[in-house]
């Protein structure tokens, strides 16, 4: 037995010693940060991934060639493989009971597969003559054929309903052959028939609510009860979205402007609709997935890295990259929050630890205590300059580092210019847009009384136009002197948007807002 006496007189320099221990713990944490676990070698580029509804170690993946695969991630082994679609698989999702799962492909087909049968066969290890061989499992249970391409899929949490999106957002019942309902917001409200949706997601808590994003740079919130719908127009396209699994009103999206945004959907009208802008990627962000804890999410980007963000922090907690990892097309958190899967264009699914320095496997009590202590110490002293520097340091590829440097330069010079513009114009005439407002053009608010009534479209358009006009006037009143100022003075610019455009054209061209989304600051 170890004799202890906690008398402070016997333990001098408590704070200084703890600081030193915290410093050591931080250093060790960085030393042990080896997030890469393994790799699932696919033959083709990965386009979609999904968790198995019941098995912790199983994931589904779909490729650009239409191949559907079931993986055992603990064995890093392919369990089952089938040519599911003729063209690439857009999305995979399991149903509410975990018995079946759905895939949608570019071949306009929705297929439903028996999940339980396949898993059972995998458990018996008799997936007849290995993966890929034709058998009773390589045929879907159900197939729906559509007239247009479907690009997204999401299943209701409790009911046998699922959503698909493409040119239209459709609600399907798994028992019926035709869609139950169609949500044709994009045809009517925005006046842009061509803008098809990219992704659609059901809210897991407030199950009547879902959101989609489309090629028209907008983020649309729907309610199945079809009373209120909201549409938010962003300056650049949203590539993927995900609802927070623990807080129903938090929605995170990733955008082409290199950022991820977290919205509070309760305040879509207000200026504070964006809770947090998550910066760090140096190219378009393509995908995201929430951790089951709802505390953080992972994003994958074309800059060949994945980043883990905390929901309320703008700076990423960690960034993972591999030497040979290519553009990341899909990311996935494991159901136990311990692993992250990233599928990239280099035909591989990589398995990462979600906490880079976490020790895997069994631990004895003393080890657990020691780890707990070191975590506490790091937490206590995390704001000391030396410790913060070490904890934040990441080694990054040259390309990312150079791009980040360039973006920083662009941002600062833009801020400087704005400052100069303000300084040289009449006081009060130039009203700067807040950082959280910049990526958003505006919000459109609509009551879709009967979603199938196509005739109401024109009316809605008028209504919207009036609404937009009213808002314009209201804002004009605030800025009485705005009329006097010159055009170029007031042009607000999306930060990252301009980067790409400047690169391409050499000059920045103002983008005309489509439809009735006119922002008077862009006059």
């Amino acid at each position, binding site marked *: 037995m*170890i*004799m*202890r*006496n*906690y*008398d*402070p*007189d*016997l*333990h*001098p*320099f408590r*704070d*200084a*010693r703890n*600081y*030193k*221990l915290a410093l*050591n713990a931080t250093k060790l944490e960085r030393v042990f940060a080896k997030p890469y676990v393994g790799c699932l070698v696919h033959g083709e580029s990965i386009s979609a991934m999904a968790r198995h509804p019941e098995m912790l170690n199983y994931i589904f993946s779909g490729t650009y060639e239409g191949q559907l695969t079931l993986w055992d991630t603990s064995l890093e082994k392919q369990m089952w493989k089938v040519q599911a679609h003729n063209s690439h698989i857009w999305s995979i999702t399991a149903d*509410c009971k975990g018995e079946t799962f759905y895939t949608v492909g570019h071949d306009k087909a929705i297929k439903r597969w028996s999940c339980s049968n396949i898993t059972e066969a995998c458990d018996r290890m008799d997936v007849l003559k290995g993966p890929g061989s034709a058998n009773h499992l390589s045929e879907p249970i159900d197939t729906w054929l559509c007239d247009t391409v479907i690009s997204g899929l999401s299943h209701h949490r*409790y*009911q*046998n309903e699922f959503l698909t999106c493409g040119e239209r957002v459709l609600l399907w019942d798994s028992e019926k052959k035709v869609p139950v309902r169609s949500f044709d917001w994009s045809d009517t409200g925005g006046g842009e028939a061509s803008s098809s949706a990219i992704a659609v997601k059901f809210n897991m808590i*407030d199950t009547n*609510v879902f959101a989609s994003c489309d090629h028209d740079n907008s983020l649309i*919130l729907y*309610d199945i009860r079809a*009373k*209120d*719908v*909201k549409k938010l127009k962003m300056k650049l396209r949203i590539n993927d979205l995900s609802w927070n699994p623990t807080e*129903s*009103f938090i929605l995170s999206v990733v955008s082409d402007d290199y950022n991820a945004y977290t919205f509070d*959907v*309760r*305040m879509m*009208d*207000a200026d*504070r609709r964006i809770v947090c802008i998550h910066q760090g990627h140096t190219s378009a962000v393509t995908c995201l997935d929430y951790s089951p804890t709802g505390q953080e999410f992972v994003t994958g980007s074309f800059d060949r890295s994945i980043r883990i963000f905390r929901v309320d922090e703008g700076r990423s907690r960690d960034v993972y990259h591999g030497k040979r990892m290519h553009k990341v097309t899909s990311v996935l958190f494991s159901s136990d929050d311990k692993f992250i899967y990233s599928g990239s264009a280099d035909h591989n699914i990589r398995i990462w630890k979600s906490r880079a320095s976490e020790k895997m496997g069994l631990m004895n009590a003393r080890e657990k205590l020691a780890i707990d202590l070191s975590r506490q110490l790091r937490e206590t002293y995390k704001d*000391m300059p030396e410790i913060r520097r070490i904890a934040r340091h990441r080694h990054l590829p040259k390309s990312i580092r150079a791009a980040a440097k360039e973006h920083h330069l662009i941002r600062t010079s833009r801020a400087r210019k704005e400052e100069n513009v303000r300084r040289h114009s009449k006081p009060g005439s130039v009203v700067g847009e807040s950082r959280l407002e910049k990526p958003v053009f505006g919000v459109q*608010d609509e009551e879709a009384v009967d979603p199938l009534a196509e005739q109401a479209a024109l009316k809605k358009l008028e209504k919207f136009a009036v609404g937009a006009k009213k808002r314009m006037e209201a804002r004009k009143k605030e800025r009485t002197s705005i009329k006097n100022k010159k055009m170029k003075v007031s042009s607000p610019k999306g930060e990252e948007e301009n980067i790409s455009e400047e690169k391409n054209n050499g000059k920045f061209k103002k983008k005309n807002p489509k439809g009735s989304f006119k922002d008077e600051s862009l006059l």
Partner: protein
Amino acid sequence: MEEPVTRSSEFTKNPKKSKWHQEKMRRNSQREAREKFPDRRPIDPELLKKYNYGHGMSKYPNLARDKFRAIKIKQREVLIQQSRKDTARAEVLLTEQPGCIEVAPGASTTEVTQKNILQAADITTKKKSFSLQLDSFGPYCFQYFRDGRHLALAGQLGHLATFNWLTKKLTMELNAMESLHDVVWLQDTSAIAVAQKKWMSIYDDRGTELHVVKRFYDITKLDYLPYHFLLTGLSGQGNLHYLDVSLGKEVILIQPKQPRAVAMVNSPFNGVMATAHSGLVCMWTPNYNEPVASMLCHKSNISALTYDPAGRYLLTAAYDRKVNIWDARNLGSQLQSLSMPHSVVSSMSVSQTGLVALACGRDVNIYKGLKEGNLTPYLHHPLETKVHQVQFCPYEDVLGVTSRSGFSSLIVPGAGEANFDAYEANPFSNRTTRRETLVKNLLEKIPYEHITLDPRTVTQVDVPSLEEKMEEKRRLIYMKVPKIDPNPRYRMKGKSGSAQTARRKLIKREVHKKRYIDRLKRAREGAGIDDDNDDDDTSADTSDTKHAIKRPTNIIDVFKKRK
């Protein structure tokens, strides 16, 4: 088609009982439970005071950046308070109690001699009392190791020995063949540093001279800071040396401008070195050449200087035959003063429980009541020759005394801390634990830069004092525009001629000046220094309230329209 189960049915289970009735029932049952199982015993407030980890954020209620952080800090402080209570409660688990002397009513403990104590003591205690006849190489200076088991003796004429004084097993003994001035244990029992005639030497537990540190020249006093791995030395010329033992590097050599220092001791509380220059005590850290604090303790020359093991009290003894006790954390406040009737105190030591041993000529006087604030005589032990040094042994009721005739170990009941902490000083350590402790200690070695008067600096928030704020304001008034040297960009097409460039430079300078003055003006306004008329301020205030942003209230329903 599973819907989440709603719990509304539970609340309407028993419609007969009213809400009021239910509440009453609940309270009754709670009261019964309290009577049956009374709450934990209240904690002694004195004990809670002992485990005080600082004032927390209550001192600066407005320091948190926002409401969320304020709440988080509060939650954390609740945890800290809880841990404080739990630690105080854990004192029940301590197994040992300190010893004491009980005398007949009316009698005084000062009359109790070592002989009496030994007669009453048990056999293990009796073994701790011994004396060594060392009269040919003396007088000896000595030091107990921090775990209270090992003793190093260095005779002035060259005799050096280390041994386990409980088992009396000799570890090492040698004759250095030159005069020895001081000896000090290093990180563990495997090395000691000895101040020799010319230089300082480091010996291992076999008596091998590992190092001769020639930078430590003519050293008279040595001391060691175990948590910083710093060996400090005071030379005969009054120079102060700092040596990092783990790296073997000299940290700093301070040559004080004050009169030559005669005594030196390190504070166990904050690691600051205190030196006695005639009547002045100076505090030094290895980060400055100047003393970080100094105070006049006596009007005559100081003869001895020591801290108590917790570093709370600083004891100074001087040739005016006075012993002054100072609050080491609140410098300059004298707590007590003691007058010695006969002789000057040549050496002092304070035990872990707060007993004070004073070497006065041929006598050793032990006082108690340091923490209570009134020193009263406790024990008295006369020797045949002049006492050279006294030191209490940690975790033992033992006082070591050296004189011309040798070393003797006296029993002083209630001197040592009864319960040791094995992670700090383990008397029962074996080779493996010693080795591992050394590695752990090295890992948590505190950088010498952290030595400050207040050891909690590292966890404190840097809040500007009123003085600093005033200074900042004063600076604002007399601020001048700093000069800049603009370097305009080179421009083509003959636009970078000297005249053009000069003009652009002038413009830049003017702009810089204007901006600076604007900024200064704003800062002055913010600081409340008004060099303009006050009318502007009032108008600005009203406009602020007019344009105050109305924040929308949160609505839980997702798509509810606002009216």
